[in-house]
């Protein structure tokens, strides 16, 4: 994991700034939608209700993340990386999402083996024999899961 000072501050945000920004946005959204997302039916009980802990936790999160953002302004950050590197991550995540979509239609074997092959390709594997390895692993897992562990795989 490199920390080479290429990122940093709002001008060149890196992973830390990005994460802190996303967390701050999520906490702010949580606080804004708290009353909509949590209905409270008061029965006269004293003490905190279903909204109290989430409210405190989200306020605290927003405060500490805002502090982290302020401190990050002058600090070096972990650079976001080249589009090619980020593209590989997106490809692996998309292969998982595709497997999720494919499993109910084509079964666990097809979905999982497909995801495995895409991961192998993304990681730089080009030999056909080793690209076939996920097929074997998926077949073994599907067979053992269904017949050994009695799991109703799709």
């Amino acid at each position: 994991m490199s920390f080479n000072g290429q990122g940093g501050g709002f001008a060149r945000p890196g992973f830390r700034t990005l994460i802190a920004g996303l967390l701050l946005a999520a906490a702010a959204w949580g606080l804004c939608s708290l009353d909509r997302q949590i209905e409270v039916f008061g029965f006269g009980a004293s003490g905190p209700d279903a909204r109290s802990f989430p409210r405190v936790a989200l306020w605290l999160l927003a405060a500490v993340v805002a502090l982290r953002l302020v401190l990050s302004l002058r600090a070096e950050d972990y650079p976001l990386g080249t589009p090619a590197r980020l593209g590989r991550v997106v490809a692996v995540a998309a292969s998982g999402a595709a497997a999720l979509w494919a499993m109910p239609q084509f079964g666990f074997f097809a979905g999982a083996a497909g995801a495995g092959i895409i991961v192998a390709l993304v990681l730089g594997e080009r030999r056909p024999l080793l690209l076939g390895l996920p097929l074997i692993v998926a077949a073994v897992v599907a067979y053992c899961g269904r017949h050994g562990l009695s799991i109703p795989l799709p």
Partner: protein
Amino acid sequence: MLVDAFLEVLNLWVLVAAITGIVSGIIIGAIPGLGPTMAIALLIPVTFSMEPIPAIILLLGVYQGAIFGGSISAVLLNVPGTPSSAATAIDGFAMARRGEGGRALRFALYASVIGNIFSCLVLMALAEPLARFALDFGPAEMAMLMLFALLVIVLFGGGSKLDALIMVLVGACAGIVGLDPISGTPRFTFGSFAFENGFQLIPVLIGLFAMSEVLLQAFDREPLVGDVEVPPLKSSVVRFAELWRMRVTLLLSSVIGTFVGILPGIGSTVPAFMSYNLARSRSADADRFGKGAPEGVVAPEAANNAVTGGALVPTLALGIPGDAVTAVILGAFMLHGLAPGPFLFRDHGLEVYAIFEALLLSSIPTVILGLLFFRVAIHVTRIQPRHLLPAITILAIFGAFSVNNSLFDVCVMLGAGVLGFLFRRANFPVPPLLIGLILGAPFEQSLRQALLTSGGGYGIFVGSPITVGLLALIGLSLAISLALSLRKART
């Protein structure tokens, strides 16, 4: 109880589970980048159809084996298989370069086993009395205890305290999703039935530790081990007399590992370095350290293995995981109907003591398998991520699905994987998030139960000697952390 538990251990499946776990652990631990946390998270679904004792022993065997396995690549390649083996690499690799790699690995193996035996004995001695004491805890005491545990993770977990606090809060906020523990009101469920059970622990674990590793490797795409020449392994022996000469180092390191392991959130890397530094400062020939001193291998290995038993003390007796690995093991206990906490020993004493005894006895197969497998494990260290990670992806999808036979859990696993990748890439610590997720909901529940009992009065949190004691511990932890920060700033 101990005899009955021993009879439970005399089961062929327990032996098979122990051997399978230890061998898998040694191999997985030897591969840099694949730690015990990921291995245990991926193996949990395999144990679904097993009896609780062999299932837990399989997973603890992986833990034990992986900690020793991590020292193989540390000694031979100077690439620690697990972070806790980093201290072992200092003198272990120096010994290997001198042609004493075999001796270094034998020292590491015997020290690992001694550390493990010591911590298992402490676990057996401390866990039940602690659980019995915790039976007197009401909601106020449990709330203060969990607050103390979360605070210790933030203050002493290493790294930035602010980052650890952010991660604990992210975990606690993720734990809010689902039905309210007191009133049953849906919270952040978006009207979806699937969200009402909240985020299940196992899919989150698999996502955070397995899927995120796949994404990290896709981002970096660099071989974990380059073309490092493995020093030849000559035939060697380690005599009992040599270990006897290091008995004080072994004992002190085991004590450090066990008792630091009991503290939540510190993990096994810190005690390994603490023991290494203590061994060096006690040595009459401190200059040899860093140049291949056997004590430099023995001290961290005894300490990082002793953490196993130590970390299980608060996990099993109080339901408070010490680190990421014990959080995963806690999840496994819960899946097998052995909910960790004060009632565990009362309701499942036989099973728990059988697990302790099996863990203690598994030192014998660890020595045998360790000696047999470290030559094989050298080749394992050469496995490239692109050969292994596709299989991990498939196992992650399978593992997430099999918890509830639900594709929603696969979705949660993928989401946790992406978040885990972003957090790890940004150097935010992931274990505090996991512990926040585990402890957040019970902390809120205890807090609200206590306030309901007291009619909304906060005096309940200073109303008993136990809560006052825990408050004093919280104050002491804050004071120690502040003093350490000030001293660090001055130097």
